[in-house]
């Protein structure tokens, strides 16, 4: 018996209303005027007391979520006075920090363009949000589509504040990204006529989502990672360090970024990398649990790249906007916040309330869909309570097989079937309970179209950069972003490395940072970058024992365990 009795009655209503809903079709789309009002009333980005003004740094005066602001204004993990920068452990052309899709693509392109490359990976090579991306990658390659149509979807979804050159690059590079990945060995789903199998997605006006079942990011990442390994085995100049994240950038006397200090997570030893160019590709921030939300993100998504860049004076853009994925699992509690891919809705499932009623078109842009769900639960009281004190709405997955034929769910969504099946929920027969979950950092490090930042020698690609998606990213544009800007960053960093003359290495920027912290009275701020969340149960610590990283206010059991058991 997968769902408890308290939820069964509501589940029955979903089944009862299903035939009528199938006949009627989806709810109407929300008109533009109402959409803005809905989002500004219910979306977590608009809860003022959850944000504060930054008091130091390049974005001084701008607002950031409380959790991110604390990290940005944090203390360095190093004492510059005790580090000897003459003892260089690794001397390379390009250092890539982070190795998901963006870092991987940047590494490959930098190497192809003649640079020696070192990758610093906090967990294993390829452990990143990329691997959990399910739905697909957008690319405007069907005859009725174009980069211009894609562009309009990107900026419309992003509330018209996207950096035009970045949105353009995203659309224009997209068909070539698909081609490049296929040549490397990514198996895209195809139609019987050999064209790509392309689905629609929230906020997309054309069918342009390319997929590899619902393991798209996994397929992309395992191929990229293997290509890096193969090139290394062939003796090409590409290498990596696992469990060894960057904890601070190194500059030279001319104001250029010139490497980084890494820390071995297991032995806690530091190493010094001199690099002519640095690409930050550290991904997102879900594990900071903004506003206490659960997250779809991987274990290492702690906004480290933002901290590293901010500390060398690099500005951030749209850092006050996060994406809450409309369908995170709200039940069972073991997978709270777990990503239920948007592909479930693109295939035809609807989100309905406790009475089985539709309340929004299932393919609204994510911020709109999430806001409508929050309204349905918080204002209208139409959510479904769970035994653990969560609330959710039904995602009526069985509709897919009814609409598209038996076996569609199993074929298109094997990961979802497997993951819910592990907890005895058969999504081909029963709906899933969902609620918005912290998913993506819309903004990030400010870049230009070649992925360069305002700081010489520093580049950024993937989720850690901002401006591409404005204030809201569309489905399938994130895995696209990785490869568009990853490749651009790799090329540009290799080019930069060929031309730059580095001066003497220095950590003066860290000394300056600590002075600024002191002047602003911020010494009490945490140490950052955060590196890993600390989910170990807190009362087990011996007083005086300093755990690695910050103690997270959120735990996967903690209070929640008390609520649900």
């Amino acid at each position, binding site marked *: 018996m997968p769902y408890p009795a308290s939820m069964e009655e509501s589940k029955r209503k979903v089944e009862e209303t299903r035939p009528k809903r199938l006949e009627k079709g989806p709810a109407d789309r929300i008109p533009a005027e109402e959409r803005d009002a809905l989002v500004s009333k219910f979306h977590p980005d608009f809860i003022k007391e959850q944000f504060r003004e930054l008091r130091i740094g390049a974005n001084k005066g701008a607002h950031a979520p409380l959790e991110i602001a604390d990290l940005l204004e944090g203390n360095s993990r190093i004492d510059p006075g005790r580090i000897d920068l003459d003892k260089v452990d690794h001397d390379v052309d390009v250092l890539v920090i982070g190795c998901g899709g963006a870092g991987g693509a940047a590494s490959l392109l930098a190497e192809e363009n003649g640079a020696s490359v070192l990758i610093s990976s906090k*967990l294993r090579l*390829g*452990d990143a949000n990329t*691997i*959990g991306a399910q739905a697909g990658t957008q690319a*405007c390659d*069907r005859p009725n589509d*174009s*980069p*211009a149509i894609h562009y*309009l979807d990107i*900026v*419309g979804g992003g509330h*018209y504040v996207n950096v*035009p050159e970045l949105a*353009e690059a995203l*659309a*224009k590079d997209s*068909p*070539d990204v698909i*081609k490049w990945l*296929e*040549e490397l*060995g990514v*198996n*895209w789903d*195809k139609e019987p006529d*050999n*064209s*790509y199998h392309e*689905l629609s997605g929230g906020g997309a*006006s054309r*069918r342009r989502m390319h997929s590899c079942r619902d393991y798209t*990011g996994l397929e992309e990442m*395992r*191929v990229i990672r*293997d290509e890096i*390994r*193969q090139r290394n085995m*062939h003796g090409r100049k590409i290498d990596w360090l696992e*469990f060894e994240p960057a904890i601070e950038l190194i500059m030279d006397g001319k104001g250029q970024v010139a490497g980084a200090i890494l820390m071995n*997570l297991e032995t806690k030893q530091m190493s010094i990398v001199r690099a002519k160019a640095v690409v930050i590709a550290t991904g997102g921030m879900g594990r900071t649990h903004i506003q206490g939300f659960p997250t779809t993100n*991987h274990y290492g998504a702690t906004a480290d790249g933002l901290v590293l860049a901010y500390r060398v004076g690099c500005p951030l853009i749209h850092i006050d906007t996060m994406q809450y994925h409309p369908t995170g699992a709200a039940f069972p509690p*073991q997978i709270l916040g*777990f*990503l239920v891919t948007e592909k479930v809705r693109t295939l*035809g499932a609807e989100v309905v309330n406790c009475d089985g009623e539709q309340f929004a078109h299932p393919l609204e842009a994510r911020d709109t869909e999430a806001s409508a769900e929050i309204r349905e639960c918080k204002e209208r009281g139409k959510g479904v309570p769970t035994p653990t004190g969560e609330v959710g709405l039904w995602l009526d997955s069985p509709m897919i097989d009814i609409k598209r034929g038996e076996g569609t769910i199993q074929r298109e969504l094997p*990961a979802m079937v*497997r*993951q819910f099946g*592990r907890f005895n929920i058969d999504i081909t027969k029963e709906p899933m309970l969902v609620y918005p979950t912290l998913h993506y950092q819309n903004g990030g490090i400010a870049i230009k179209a070649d992925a360069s930042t305002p700081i010489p020698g520093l580049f950024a690609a993937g989720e850690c950069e901002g401006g591409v998606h404005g204030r809201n990213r569309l489905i399938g544009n994130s895995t696209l972003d990785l490869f568009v800007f990853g490749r651009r960053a790799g090329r540009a960093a290799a080019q930069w490395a060929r031309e730059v003359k580095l001066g003497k290495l220095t950590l003066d920027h860290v000394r300056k940072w600590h002075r600024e912290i002191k002047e602003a009275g911020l010494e009490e701020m945490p140490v950052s970058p955060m590196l890993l969340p*600390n*989910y*170990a*149960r807190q009362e087990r610590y011996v007083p005086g024992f300093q755990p*690695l*990283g910050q103690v997270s206010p959120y735990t996967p*059991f903690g209070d929640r365990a008390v609520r*649900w*058991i």
Partner: protein
Amino acid sequence: MAEVAKKVQMLDIYIMGKRYRVPEGLTIQSALEYCGYNIIRGCGCRSGFCGACGTIYNFTYDPTIRYALACQTVVQQNMVMTQIPFFPAAEALYNVEDLEPKEGGNKLAELYPDILTCFGCNNCTKTCPQDLEVMEFMSDAIRGDYEKVYEKSFDCLLCGLCAARCPQGLQPYNIALAARRLRAAHLAPKSQHNLDRVKEIEEGQFDAELKRLKKMSADELRELYAKREIEPAL
């Protein structure tokens, strides 16, 4: 909300032989954290996609070894467990562009000649936390049937447990990875519409239109966006 008031049921579990008491309902991963472990290795996506958290377990009363992903498996009374974080297995050297299969040949057997030593013990299949038919796709690999290897191995997370368990020292997950890369790069039919679009973009066919859009004010874009034609979802 009767369930909320239910009494907490505590379970005995053994982490690397040491006994702890944890509330029921936790996954192995959150049980480790509940016991005070701050995991560094053996934890990745925390949602069953990355294969970082391979774990073996049995029970105090049943020595049969079982395999699981720590983030996807709920602890049970008297479970005895230890994590086997990913460690790399041997991998054949290749360039994906050189993997084009020839009639009558078997690229996989060329890359991994040892696959012929598979004697069908089926340990790999029993080990797989994704419940894949590993031994079957190893047979397909021996026959050079790339399509079937692709089909059957596609949901592989590369956790490495099959290679760790193979008595012949084979690397099913790496062999399947080579087969899938080969298939995509050389056997999958080309999608002409994509190649055409790449060429059109290179020729600058959309540049004027994009330039016009980039210069538009938010209001102009908003108007255009509201009027845009939306293709049905299929």
